[in-house]
């Protein structure tokens, strides 16, 4: 009886004391790509989502992802790989978009982004968190992508050019003999009429 009561008392105490941890907020960072395919020399868009779960504002947020996409393999088109925000209010979320262009094809692995923030304006203790990652990705060459998705007009024009001798040459032979035959028939008819 006493044991049960003490366990219940300890449980209530831990829940009551545990409530104070909820005063601080925690920042969740997701890192995703919105591309269906990754193609060399085509846009590669990455979406970073920052979510403030918890009741307080976080301050001085820094996102650094330059190590995932080195400049010799990726060209930066839009956005920045190291971004900072003043604050993020409780319960709100932020989106940051970066558009890169892969210079090489093949398998490329990317790691998580590193995000640092302060839990309060006065307390300058920096909290570090990592974003999610999407692991190894396969960047296809632009030839592979074009084979599936380009409009193929030039291919068809070339095909028509190559197929036309097979069609035009017999047609020409037939047309020549047909016009000769028709000319003969009309000559006969006109000569018959004359007679």
């Amino acid at each position: 009886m006493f044991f049960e009561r003490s366990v219940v008392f300890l449980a209530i105490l831990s829940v009551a004391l545990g409530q104070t941890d909820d005063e601080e907020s925690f920042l969740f960072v997701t890192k995703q790509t919105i591309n269906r395919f990754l193609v060399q020399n085509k846009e590669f868009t990455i979406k970073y989502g920052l979510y403030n779960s918890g009741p307080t504002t976080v301050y001085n947020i820094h996102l650094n992802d330059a190590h995932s996409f080195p400049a010799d393999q990726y060209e930066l088109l839009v956005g920045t790989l190291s971004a900072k925000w003043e604050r993020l209010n409780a319960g709100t979320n932020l989106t940051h978009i970066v558009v890169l262009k892969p210079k090489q094809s093949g398998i490329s692995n990317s790691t998580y982004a590193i995000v640092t923030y302060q839990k309060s304006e006065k307390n300058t203790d920096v909290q570090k968190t990592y974003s999610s990652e999407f692991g190894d990705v396969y960047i296809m060459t632009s030839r592979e992508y074009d084979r599936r998705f380009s409009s193929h007009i030039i291919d068809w024009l070339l095909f028509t050019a190559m197929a036309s001798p097979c069609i035009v040459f017999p047609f020409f032979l037939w047309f020549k003999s047909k016009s000769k035959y028709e000319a003969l028939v009309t000559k006969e008819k006109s000569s018959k009429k004359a007679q």
Partner: protein
Amino acid sequence: MFRVVLAALAIIALVNGETCESPEFKVNSHSTRDARLTAESAAQLEITVKCKNGKQPGTLYADINGQVVPCAQTPAAPGKYFIGVAANTHKELASGRTKIKLYDDDSYSALRKARTEDATKAVKPFGQVELNHPGVSYGPWLPSEFFAVCTFGLVWWAAYRERSKILG
């Protein structure tokens, strides 16, 4: 007396010098164009602000879909502000021009203090920029194979007609 006037003038100069007056925005807008390459739509605005008195606004906040969030800045380029907009499907990102209101520190704190709907609307934004999204393309309407089939079908049909005339 003179010192008081000087101090007052100094304070006025300081206050006026702090805020950015009549800002001019230069916007670089980028959005998803190819719907076959991407599964979702996203847009990013890169804003450069030029103030008449040469000051930078500090932090800018943007009103995206009703939510006011701070703009990203980068240590590498101090004058640039970034706004990112993401949509779960291609249709959710409205094509055409969308106006986004910007707030600086002063107008943002006024916005936070406003409690009623009217008061929120009465806060004058720092500026306004436009997101221009031309829309996404799913590829050509008619594939080139369609035209190839039509052309060769016509050729075949003409030849078949002549053949039937000869044989019939």
